[in-house]
């Protein structure tokens, strides 16, 4: 079982459609009679809408309706109101337009629907509101005393000496800050919804999970899931914000039902900052102890993150610390502070990217304290087996990765002393870090259809937010069946296809790929029964048979063979600890006068099992590192806490890296199959590409300057003031 050869680098199967504009994104679908929705949002952060005047807007040309809390059609699944005692805040549920309450700035207070976008925009500008303002809290630093244990994540502790981090011969205590980061995919969020009668809903959506969108909508309107059609074949980036079907998207479907017209909402960039989640502002404290010769004796890692007053969003910011190093005493805690903010959501490398910045910076700091090379320090504290679960790793090629990466970047050739290397005016620094993410595999189903002409069509209700899912799936099918790439088509982004999970947690290749593998294997069996076989890129009569595929199908009165297979991991999933690993090496230049940091060179090594699709995998790594450069140097959502409003909610002021910020990124794959994760031997890739990278840059800045910057992003002002 399994695929044992290396994969060929394949061009994206949908590359041409994307660059020629043939690929259609949700907002591009033309539905007859479509109407346009524009949201009016709250100017205050907490309180109530006192009055809202929609008269002028309603009379404006082309306006079909203005919905506010006063006339919003009821959404049956939202009927349940009141306190949710599970929340640390005891806060109220957020029900958009369900009442006059304002729970966060930017919350929609009206939906304006008109026959053209421009008319809807104009009418929206005519809606006026007055508020009863209440005091608000959006600043985590000022509300730390509200930190509470999240209902979904307990504290972790191992070892007999809980105080080892405090009593060790060498101690480090440091605080690290990761600001609000906003996903900002290029494509704006939204939905296009229309009904047939009052129980059949169709949507074109921007989602990372067509099935989860289907479930959310079905339960909101209390209709049968089968009656909800969800289409989302192409998605212009998600990074996690598409893992939820957001209240405003449900509300648009409700408006469409009420108006009996298709309604389309495309959010504004500004609204992308408040209504589709973000990486939560998180402060972390690490206390670390080691012996003089560099053996870790204790780690204490506490992370405190913001969440909404109405939801207990929780992520694994401290997970890596629990198992990454062979340290006998480890305690981790995660706390949430409910604030008057919209709810966060997973963002690429969720939790781990935040935690890895702290842990991998602290490891670097400790290495310098004990006078060891940071790479040697990591090797010295290398965990051969998972110390958290006391299980072997399904595969762990980190040592090889450390070696390959360090050779490629020239780690040994650098002068390890801080502020010792120069290139003209610029200070030169090298930094490294490790990234990890669970190698998850979920249940997934795939349907295969082998047509008379020998083409193979595969279908699964998964999504592709950009990594090249179809390309990887076609590659797997090609490797199992031997059929040429151009004879295989993989279809996704339709909730009517056999069920799969959302595209998140770097699990798509592992989960859906396994289903593709299994369904292709099953197809082989069907062919064998029918006296046929995959032979040299085509379906041929089996040995001793003479009927062709066409003959067999026509004798059976069929035009195709079909088979559907569901696939999930077996007991091996419990026996091993399954992780993907990455190693990042960054070489930076820091200008001592201006504080400007430039990433000059990157070597990133992925231990993510067998590489199913080398070309798109390399793209994933490059994209992840680019996101990592943003996290390290440029990205920060800034809120003026006096108002609770963002002051940089656009792409001119919220700085995602541009081409000039991104140097050549060298990607190296260990490319060794993991024996246990799935039949392809693959492990996830999307998250590890970013996780840890910010620490590599921060560590390189330290090496270049001797300045330790523990608050992201590392902008020129911080370098100058450090």
């Amino acid at each position, binding site marked *: 079982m399994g695929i044992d050869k290396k994969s060929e680098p394949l061009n994206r199967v949908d590359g041409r459609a994307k660059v020629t504009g043939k690929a259609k994104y949700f907002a591009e679908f033309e539905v007859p009679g479509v109407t346009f929705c524009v949201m009016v949002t709250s*100017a205050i952060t907490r309180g109530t809408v006192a009055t809202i005047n929609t008269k002028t807007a309603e009379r404006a040309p082309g306006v079909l309706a203005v919905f506010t809390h006063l006339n919003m059609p009821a959404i049956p699944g939202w009927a349940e109101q009141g306190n949710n005692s599970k929340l640390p805040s005891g806060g109220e549920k957020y029900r958009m337009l369900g009442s006059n309450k304002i729970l966060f700035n930017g919350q929609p207070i009206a939906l304006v629907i008109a026959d053209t976008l*421009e008319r809807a*925009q*104009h009418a929206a*500008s005519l809606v006026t509101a007055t508020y009863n303002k209440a005091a608000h809290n959006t600043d985590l630093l000022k509300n730390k005393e509200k930190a509470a244990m999240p209902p979904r994540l307990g504290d972790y502790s191992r070892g007999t000496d809980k105080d080892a981090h405090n009593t060790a011969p060498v101690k480090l205590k440091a605080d690290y800050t990761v600001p609000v980061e906003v996903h900002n995919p290029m494509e704006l969020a939204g939905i296009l919804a229309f009904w047939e009668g009052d129980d059949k809903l169709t949507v074109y959506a921007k989602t990372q999970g067509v099935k989860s969108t289907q479930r959310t909508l079905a339960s909101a309107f209390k209709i049968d899931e089968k009656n909800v059609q969800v289409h989302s074949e192409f998605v212009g980036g998600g990074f996690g914000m598409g893992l939820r079907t957001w209240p405003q998207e449900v509300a648009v479907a409700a408006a469409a039902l009420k108006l009996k017209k298709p309604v389309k909402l495309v959010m504004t960039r500004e609204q992308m900052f408040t209504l589709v989640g973000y990486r939560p502002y998180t402060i972390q404290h690490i206390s670390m102890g080691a012996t003089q010769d560099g053996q870790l004796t204790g780690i204490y890692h506490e992370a405190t993150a913001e969440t909404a007053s109405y939801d207990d969003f929780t992520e694994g910011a401290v997970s890596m610390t629990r198992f990454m190093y062979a340290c006998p005493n480890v305690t981790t805690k995660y706390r949430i502070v409910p604030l008057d903010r919209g709810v966060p959501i997973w963002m690429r490398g969720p939790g781990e990217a935040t935690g890895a910045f702290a842990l991998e910076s602290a490891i670097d700091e400790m290495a310098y304290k004990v006078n060891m090379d940071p790479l040697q320090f990591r090797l010295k504290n290398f965990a051969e087996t998972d110390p958290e679960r006391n299980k072997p790793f399904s595969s762990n090629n980190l040592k090889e990765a450390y070696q390959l990466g360090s050779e490629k970047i020239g780690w040994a050739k650098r002068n390890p002393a801080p502020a010792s290397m120069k290139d003209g*005016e610029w200070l030169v620094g090298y930094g490294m870090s490790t990234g990890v993410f669970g190698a998850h595999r979920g249940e997934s189903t795939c349907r295969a259809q082998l047509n008379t002409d020998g083409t193979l069509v595969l279908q699964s209700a998964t999504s592709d937010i950009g990594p090249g899912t179809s390309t990887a799936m076609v590659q797997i099918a090609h490797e199992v069946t031997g059929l040429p790439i151009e004879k295989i088509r993989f279809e996704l982004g339709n909730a009517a296809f056999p069920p799969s999970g959302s595209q998140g947690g770097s699990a798509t290749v592992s989960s859906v790929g396994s289903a593709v593998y299994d369904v292709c294997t099953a197809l082989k069996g069907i062919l064998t029964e029918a006296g046929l076989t995959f032979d040299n890129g085509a379906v041929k009569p089996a040995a001793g048979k003479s009927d062709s595929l066409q003959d067999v199908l026509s004798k059976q009165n069929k035009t195709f063979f079909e088979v559907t297979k569901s696939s999930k991991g077996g007991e091996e999933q419990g026996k091993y600890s399954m992780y993907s690993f990455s190693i990042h090496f960054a070489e930076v230049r820091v*200008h001592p*006068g*201006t*504080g*400007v940091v*430039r990433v000059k060179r990157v070597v990133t090594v992925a231990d993510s099992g067998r590489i199913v699709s080398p070309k798109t995998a390399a793209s994933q790594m490059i994209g992840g590192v680019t996101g990592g450069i943003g996290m390290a*140097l*440029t990205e920060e959502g*800034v809120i*003026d806490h*006096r*108002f609770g*409003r963002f*002051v*940089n909610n656009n792409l*001119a*002021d919220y*700085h995602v*890296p*541009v*081409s*000039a*910020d991104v140097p050549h990124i060298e990607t190296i794959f260990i490319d060794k199959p993991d024996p246990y994760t799935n039949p392809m031997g693959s492990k996830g890739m999307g998250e590890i590409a970013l996780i840890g990278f910010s620490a590599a840059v921060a560590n390189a800045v330290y090496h270049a300057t001797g300045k330790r910057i523990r608050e992201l992003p590392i*902008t*020129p*002002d911080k370098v*100058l*003031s450090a």
Partner: protein
Amino acid sequence: MNQFSYVRVTSKESAIAALAKDKTAMFLAGGTNLVDLMKSGVTNPERLVDINKLPLATIEETKTGLRIGALAKNTAVAENDLVIKHFPLLSQALKAGASPQLRNMATVGGNMMQRTRCHYFYDTAMPCNKRNPGSGCGAIGGFSRMHAIFGASDKCIAVHPSDMCVALAALDATVIVAGPKGERKIPFGDFHRLPGDTPQQDNNLQRGELIIAVDIPFNQLSANTHYLKVRDRASYAFALVSAGAAMQIKGGNITDVRLALGGVAHKPWRLKEAEAWLKGKPATEENFRKAAELSMAQAKSQGGNAFKLTLAPNTIVEALKTAAAQA
């Protein structure tokens, strides 16, 4: 966005007349700033007077210098051979601004007239004396990282965001404007103004006046120039601080020098005192440092922008050093 009407004019006279006729009318050039302001409800003209068809896009040599038409696109100016030859600082400054797409649309006149990027100014839910006089200044005591260290008032601490204008200020340009009462000339240094008690007024152009051209006199400063822009990412970001430097160096001594800063004041910030001090002195890092320190005498932090007190002099030194190292 508000509803508005649109008219395209083909002569200066009709352009000026169109604005005289209608108090809510505004000129539309590249639209890269005005349309954004309209979308966010900050500026609500009821009539747009499109001036793009006016014959004001030429760049020509006169007896005393170059005349650059107000409608010359930022890209066209940056890539013009005469500009590169005589005023490389202007070309460098333009190329440091915005993105190629924006520079392809943006005009010289529009660039001068672009409004501050202060976020409170753009967000109509926030207080801002520039947008809504008397409503208060959101940036004071708030997010002031991008704001002024020179010439701010207790009413407004915004900066003028242009890169091009820093070069034009350094190059002693003159602005030619035309209005209902005819043409007049404004020295570049007098074009923009400090906020004082009337931050709603960015500059000294009168309502209804049209910028026709900018004159730049020839100089001997083209050999040693540098525009250094320090920003939060490598491209496509407004300056934290920028410095334009142009020098004439003979036998190691500075015989003439121009120096201006961007991102530090409500107008491009010319450093005449430092220039006078440097003149006649050897082009050494030590002298550059002293001149930079001299330039900072009046600088004042607003809290969030305290780092500019260090960054600005350092940027001056780096710009001068790099300029001196040319050729």
